[in-house]
């Protein structure tokens, strides 16, 4: 078996006296998607931010392509070049047009020429049906379009691993679908990813593994069928029940 893209081993993270992640271990093989589910505040986002080195772990090890990225000598910029991250609040740069948002990192970080970066960006925009938005500022776009641009922006540097942090939570229900189908297409093209989401139906479609987090611990994990239909842990059952009542299943 080939080396997993991402390995998280016994990671712990606390903010002051509040423990946010405790004994977290996950393995993400190439071309698979791991979905993190759990209530708000369960530690999903923090885990993604730790993988991205936006937060430093307090204990444990994270490996990317077999190399430890949590050692003191790691250059975070080098690690982040291999990762894409999409945020709940899009975080597009409001002073740049859509195209400029996308070509910034390829040009400044990966040394691509403007022409080459533009060509690649237009290709991506075309693939996701957004080519006519290239010359607009983000605030002229709908939330769903903004989030798709954010996804394209993170794809433009051809990441090894894509981290998606509740990418549909800030969208109204009508717009959720266009973003989810974009993510589904990425999955079909073999993108390796870790996502935090509240969309259980979507989790079932894209996940190879589902992890349930509560109070910073992974309480249960397994295939989406097992996790979403026959969870064994009563806490998982309880969580899914509540999600179901909220009409998201």
């Amino acid at each position: 078996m080939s080396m997993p893209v991402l390995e998280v081993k016994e990671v712990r993270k606390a903010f002051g006296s509040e423990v946010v992640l405790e004994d977290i271990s996950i393995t993400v093989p190439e071309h698979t998607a791991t979905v993190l589910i759990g209530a708000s505040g369960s530690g999903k986002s923090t885990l993604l931010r730790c993988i991205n080195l936006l937060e430093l772990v307090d204990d444990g090890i994270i490996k990317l392509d077999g190399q430890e990225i949590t050692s003191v000598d790691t250059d975070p910029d080098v690690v982040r070049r291999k990762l894409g991250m999409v945020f709940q609040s899009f975080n597009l740069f409001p002073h740049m047009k859509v195209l400029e948002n996308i070509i910034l990192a390829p040009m400044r970080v990966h040394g691509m020429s403007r022409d080459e970066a533009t060509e690649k960006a237009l290709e991506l925009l075309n693939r996701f049906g957004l080519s006519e938005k290239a010359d607009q500022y983000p605030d002229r776009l709908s939330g769903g379009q903004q989030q798709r641009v954010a996804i394209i922006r993170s794809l433009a540097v051809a990441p090894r691993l894509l981290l998606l942090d509740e990418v549909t939570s800030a969208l109204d229900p009508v717009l959720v679908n266009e973003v989810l189908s974009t993510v589904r297409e990425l999955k079909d093209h073999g993108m390796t990813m870790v996502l935090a989401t509240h969309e259980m139906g979507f989790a079932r479609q894209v996940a190879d593994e589902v992890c349930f987090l509560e109070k910073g611990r992974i309480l249960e994990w397994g295939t989406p069928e097992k996790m979403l239909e026959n969870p064994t842990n009563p806490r998982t059952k309880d969580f899914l029940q509540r999600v179901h009542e909220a009409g998201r299943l």
Partner: protein
Amino acid sequence: MSEDVRRGDGSPNSAPYSFGGEWTPSDFEIQRRADRKKKVRKNAFIAAFSSIFVLGTLMTIIVTSPGWKVLSATFFDWSYGFTILPKILVGFFESNVILTLIASASVAVIGLTLALIRTSRSPALTPFRILATIYVDMFRGIPMLLIILLVGFGIPALQLKGVTNNVFILGIIAVIITYSAYVAEVIRSGILTVHPSQRAAARSLGLSNFQTLRYVVLPQALRRVTPPLLNDLVALIKDTGLVSILGVTDAIRAAQIEASRTFNYTPYVIAACIFLLVTIPLTRYTDRTLRRSIERQNAQGQA
């Protein structure tokens, strides 16, 4: 029925836009428009009446006051003012304008540098960060008049070789010292208002700390602080007049020389008018940029 038939018979009452159907305002709407017009007219009348009444009363009080004759002769002697206008203009352009140009350019560079040092987190810059903080605390806290006196009389008193005792240059230095501290704080506040998520997004794309600042944080920060920076520019223009205390013959000093020669204060009024001629358009422009930046931020909030 086809689209064409429904849309265009070109009747004079048709609306400027069309959803495919003909629309003529209802009687109710026509009445409402008439009422609205009446209300607007009434408001205009009230505004005009109250303005005339208040301003008229003020004018009357001033003009009928016992000292008005003397005052208007010593402050508003326009024919005398016209003869000394060139002198004051020369002072204004040779001192205030040049001082403003040199100082604002230098202040922009120094202020930005100070702001960047103060917001940086690099451990290597720690001593500079401390120095920048002390600098800003000191020169924001001392009245500019004192800085001008200290620099203007203090530096020549050192009698160092090669150091100028040209009051004009010393005056510019004093202005730059003070305004750099103000501007540094304005820019720093702009940098701090850029949301951390913007930084996180840039860093997670692999941009270095410096690149994040250069391409993502600063462009947004500077756009946000443009109105307060323009405000500081207006204040700077006025404050260039303070260097007259060192003996620089600027507009104020030129007016003072004239006034003390003739005991007529019209030169001061003339100097004030010259300053207003520059500062009023600039403050109007500042208001406009402020309004635009608020509109832009509101638009973003809705997205």
